[in-house]
């Protein structure tokens, strides 16, 4: 069964016909040619496909495209603006927070989401008491643990995110 939907992807309205079984990730990659989000596991276990949907981070492999009709989707490609890459992206390069780069588009989207979540005062499993969370190493590590990096760039990822959040 097919459905016609519209996604606003990286600031541009995109009409697309999808199989109702098509995930948001496959709609982006295979139907729309938006290959910034990556498919690492297709099970929501690695985070490589992370995008921002209406500002919140989502593993796009676990989301059906048909259920996202009308949504605003931001991928790593769309984080950049007229001034160039997003500060998180610049900090990833400066801190060498990547090696092979395959998990990186998901990492940077997740990092942008994390910064917004901490700013909004959302607690995590390591937040102590009822106080607003601060962007400590422990908070960043906990909140970024849904994004696996097999190359082992975690120390750089933590440094990059703290640098932007400082």
């Amino acid at each position, binding site marked *: 069964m097919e459905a016609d939907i519209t996604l606003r992807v990286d600031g541009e309205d995109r009409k697309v016909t999808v199989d109702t079984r098509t995930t948001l990730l496959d709609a982006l990659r*295979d139907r729309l040619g938006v290959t910034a989000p990556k498919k690492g596991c297709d099970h929501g*276990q690695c985070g490589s496909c992370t995008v921002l949907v209406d500002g919140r981070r989502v593993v796009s492999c676990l989301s059906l495209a048909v259920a996202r009709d009308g949504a605003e989707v931001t991928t790593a490609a769309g984080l950049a603006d007229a001034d160039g*890459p997003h500060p998180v992206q610049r900090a990833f390069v*400066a801190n060498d927070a990547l090696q092979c*780069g395959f998990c990186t588009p998901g990492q940077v989207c997740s990092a942008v989401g994390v910064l917004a979540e901490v700013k909004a005062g959302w607690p995590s499993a390591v937040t102590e008491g009822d106080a607003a969370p601060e962007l400590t190493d422990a908070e960043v590590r906990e909140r970024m643990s849904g994004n696996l*990096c*097999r190359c082992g760039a975690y120390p750089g990822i933590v440094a990059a995110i703290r640098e932007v959040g400082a």
Partner: protein
Amino acid sequence: MTDQLTPNAIGRDVARADGPLKVLGAAPYAYDQPLTDPLYLCTVDATVVRGRVAGVDASAALAMDGVELVLTHENAPELSTEDGELRVLQSPEVHFRGQVVAAVVATTTEVAAAAAGAVVVTYDTEPFAVTAGSDPAGLHAPEKVNAGYPTDTDDGDLDAAVAAAAFTVDEEYTTARTHNNPLEPHTTVATWTGGDLHVFEASQSVFGARRVLAGVFGLDPERVRVTCPYVGGGFGSKGSPHAGAVVTVMAARMLPGRSVKFALTRRQMFRLVGYRPRMTQRVRLAAAPDGTLTGVGVDVVQESARIKEYAEQTAVAARMMYAAPNRRTSHRLALLDIPVPTWMRAPGEAPGMFALETAIDELAARVGIDPIALRVRNEPERDPATGKPFSSRHLVDCLHEGADRFGWYDRDPRPRSRRVNGWLVGYGVAASTYPAYRMPANSAVVRYTADDRYRVEIGASDLGTGAWTALAQIAADALGVPQDSIDLAIGDTRLPRATVAGGSSGTASWGTAIVEAARAFRDKFGRTPEPDDEVFADAPENTAAKDFALHGYGAQFAEVRVHEDTGEIRVPRLYGMFDAGRVINPRTARSQLVGGMTMGLSMALHEDSVMDTALGHTANPDLGEYHIAANADVHEIRADWLGIPDERLNPMGSKGIGEIGITGTAAAIANAAHHATGVRVRELPITLDKFLR
């Protein structure tokens, strides 16, 4: 000695050249290449361990809209290979659970998956053996082990040395089956046009992939092009193509003019691309009263596949690490009905240095001396394995310098001597080593384009190592120009030949070819070339390997906390000091070493592919159940280096750094856990139950 580059660009801390592209998600990996109307492949995998396909009913699949082809052993093209892993769909035989027994090609991924699910395969089954010891055929001695080393060695009389020793260690160490699991699944995109094949392959070696695929399909390699500018990790599994590449090229051959795409699922990554086999090592050490080693023995038993033998060179490091007159090593295989294993980061040294370096720690405890002092006492003057002098060996410097920076001597050496808030705290140390390989058969082209710009070409691969950056730095110094004057091209068989990004040999092998071409270019055209002036050159022979033993070294230190009540283990601190020759780019090099140590941490604490002996396959084949180190598992991990160039190795004076970081990490952690708790864990991974027995 080789004629050394004058360091200007090399040694400089510059950002990763491909970083800006990668943070935007704009680096095109194999699956990301834009194509017109591609087709999608989905495989049907065996649901029995051993037997034969009795029948395939593809009628329901073929009736689906969008299905273009169903491949089975009955209609598959004949292949010209005897390689048991690559002979895909050549017979009805099933050799392991999850083997490809059919494949569907369709216009969308959804249809391909649905059609693959609708193919009905029936089997005749046979009894199987999937764990060492369960196979009545017993153990098998391979002709040689990986990288061409002898299977067994025997020098002096180990048994007599053990019998006469003041102190001995005689223990068994077990390492788990572990999977490379690069985040990018193995991917093949194949197109046949006329008689020409073009493949986008997630590969650590475009020329190796071309050689293998040309051989399997009986083609002239000149008619096969393999392209792969970016690789999403590999750690060995992408060193050579596997069954998924073969079945995709096969399907493309039957659908000429169409591009066929296949990316393995994460589950398939646990059975179709190789892995490090489970193994047990019996280590015997014999020592005089002062700890001087008189004997070293390592006997390895490892699992391998009946259809294709892979013998990891696990005992090779023990042949070389420490001086001892009596030494004996052996490798034996249990050939089983399991998927084919292959290279995983530091094959041999990674499991080998876990066992040896834990045993050395055990010996130090029995002798009653500091484990660093024990290693220093047994430092060999020449390579015990070959009798050759070392080109350079700064292990002792790594141990001393690392100990100072880590704060090693703060520790009370008695086990279980420090508690902090319910956590037992310990420090451990282990040595690291990895050979300094440089491969033959590398060439490069240097061309002056215009406006002070040079194009440098070599069919190298960057799977995250930093080759895009380091090779440009090397080319800049070889030509005597700034790094930003270099336009580098890698990752395509249309470029000059290059060897694999493996064996930590890439930078040395490719860099040497680039330096040769750049020097020849300057000799021929001087400092003021004309546009399109060009030189092609082959790298010179590696003469140092004839006369010297070539290795890198390191010392790793771990701080470990084990909870006294629950047995939970944490590693708040890992520190590595390495003898890595001259470092080309400190920023990317540090990431390589820290990344290796992180995978060593993961090997030590997490990774365990559990064999379901009833069903005959990995019971935890996904990233939810097979845990690899996540961000919260990693605390402080730091790596430094001595920075002493080895001028015999190559014009850069560099040693490989891709693999040495994973060697010794697990032993440093296990030794620290012993210091913390008094419990010696000899079986990886080090899970909490092992402290509570």
